[in-house]
């Protein structure tokens, strides 16, 4: 049975699944990268993703349009992270504690909202999900075609966000200023530029991206919301940013490693190889700890990450 794993069709479907599964993780991680580069540690990703997944599902169900669902998720993510930003940037509340509070809010509010929206119904309705959008010609290439060019629109968006954010951070003036807010906020302050404005922008962008990742879970794969369906993806996205040393391309690589583990797990279950499924499901979390344990100390972390700036 193990030999089945090495057939071309199996490998192609494994890699295509890896790229598909990478989508929510990559969206959340790239968003978190921008927030952390501005100096703000948003640990509320898990709750933001959950709320994104829920609101996308509810809005898509109510409106009949999946894109309305996506828009609802973006709005929810932006609003939640605006609240987070107000607490940690304006009021300077401890970032870790506030992030946890946002997770608890997302977890509690999403379950309550779901129950309240479908009170008394034993089953919640399924929405349609996004179709794949094969790219003409490219999708017909062998191996690469089905893996990279026959995916959903949100997956292309996630992949394109990597070079886009790279270009923004390293090749534009606002990107430089944003990184400066995380490395040397005083320099910005002396120039008369607002640190808070850049951090608000970065955090809201990060929250919207995380919620978009959450939306992918409902309107592009599961077609229903389930409590705690993000299952640690928000936390894995934070791990990926650290393991990727706060740089876009290594973050993409780290995301693909984690999604490959997940895709492999699905494939192995599909073929029926007898490994207890719990071991396979726990693997990403074990790998996350190992990945952090073997990396060099604090490599690449913004100097003022998690520290509120106070004028002397």
């Amino acid at each position: 049975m193990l030999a089945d794993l090495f057939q071309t069709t199996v490998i192609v479907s494994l890699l295509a699944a890896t790229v598909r599964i990478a989508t929510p993780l990559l969206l959340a991680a790239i968003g978190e990268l921008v927030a952390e580069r501005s100096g703000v540690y948003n640990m509320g990703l898990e709750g933001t993703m959950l709320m994104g997944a829920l609101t996308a599902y509810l809005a898509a169900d109510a409106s009949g349009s999946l894109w309305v669902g996506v828009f609802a998720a973006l709005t929810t993510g932006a609003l939640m992270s605006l609240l987070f930003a107000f607490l940690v940037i304006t009021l300077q509340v401890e970032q870790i504690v506030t992030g946890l509070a946002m997770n608890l809010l997302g977890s509690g509010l999403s379950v309550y909202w779901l129950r309240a929206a479908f009170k008394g119904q034993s089953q919640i309705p399924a929405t349609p999900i996004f179709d794949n959008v094969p790219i003409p010609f490219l999708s017909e290439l062998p191996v690469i075609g089905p893996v990279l060019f026959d995916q959903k629109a949100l997956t292309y968006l996630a992949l394109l966000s990597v070079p886009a954010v790279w270009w923004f951070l390293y090749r534009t003036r606002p990107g430089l200023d944003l990184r400066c807010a995380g490395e040397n906020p005083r320099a910005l302050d002396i120039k008369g530029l607002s640190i808070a404005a850049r951090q608000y922008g970065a955090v809201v962008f990060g929250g919207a991206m995380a919620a978009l990742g959450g939306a992918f879970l409902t309107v592009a794969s599961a077609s229903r919301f389930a409590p705690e369906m993000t299952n640690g993806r928000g936390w894995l996205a934070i791990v990926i940013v650290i393991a990727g040393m706060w740089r876009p391309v290594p973050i993409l690589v780290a995301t693909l490693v984690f999604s490959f583990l997940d895709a492999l797990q699905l494939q192995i279950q599909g073929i029926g190889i007898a490994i207890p499924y719990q071991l396979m499901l726990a693997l990403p979390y074990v790998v996350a700890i190992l990945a952090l344990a073997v990396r060099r100390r604090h490599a690449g972390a913004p100097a003022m990450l998690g520290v509120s700036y106070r004028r002397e």
Partner: protein
Amino acid sequence: MRMLEHLGWRVVRADASPARTAVWVSASLLLAVLLSALLFEAAGASPAAAFAALLKGAFGSWRTASETLVAATPLIFTGLATAVAFRARIWNIGAEGQVFAGAMFAYWCQHGLAGFSPAIQLPVIVLGGLAGGGLYAGLAAILKTRFNVDEVISTVMLNYIIVYALSLLLLQGPWSEPGAFFEQSAKMDPGSLLPLLSGGSRLHAGFLLAVAAAAVVQVIMTRTPVGYEIRAAGSNLRALKVQGTSPARVILMVMMISGALAGLAGVAQVYGVHYRLKAGALTGYGYTGIIVAILGQLKPWGVVAAAIVFGALVTGATFMQVKTGVPSALIYAVEAILLLCYLAGWAAARFRLKRVAHAG
């Protein structure tokens, strides 16, 4: 901000007096109640009726009041666990997993002792719970001090891992109930159960143990060198180093004390309430414990008080759902709203407007 400065005012940050903090925190908790009322409205229930049902369900009779204390018991343990760690500014988010570890280690030690007297089995489950939670938290401490893995991340990962470990042991493993379909252990031996405190209620000895734990933590924090080191780690790590205390040792100690307390929550749930080892008996207490600890101001008796309030929410919510149709899941949203408002109020007390000379 700039507009304010043009008007001749500036926002300054300063330490707040206790009275000022109290005013802001009260106002923010009032805001939390108002926001919760909006959620009741959203579910189509009258907030007044829902609050009344919540209160009646929590304190209406001795039976419901004792249920409130039963629900508060694990939260006292996890709240204390979080308070000890957060006091030292060590972010142990792993009480959730340490609850599992405590219950699992206690079960591992105890399940071969069926038939022995409670005088043997009860100490075994308590020590097993302390050890299981403590060791699992100790793992995160060593990951931090030896391998520089941030404890927030490692404890969250360990929370996910142990859920799968329990599932493996219960479903295919040695702890599964023979012939049963559910993912749970066989029923506990009667000699291992935490004694009930009064007939006609489920209140068990675990509650007394929790109150005793709060007293012990209070003494440790205020009267012993260990407590001094914990408080010092929270405020001035450098001073600790100067006087020759190793931060790594303090981190390990704090994490193990914290985890041991959380482990007792697992013992209380398994041996005091559910009488079986299963994930459903253990889920959620660690995360709620974080809110309990912060609303209890990281102080042992504050934690006990906050845990009882939260226990009342849990107990009252069931009655409220029956009575008004508001889903009981509401309380998890309300808990988070309470925490966020509290954090905002506490921080806002530290800002004030100050008249300044005109900049022009």
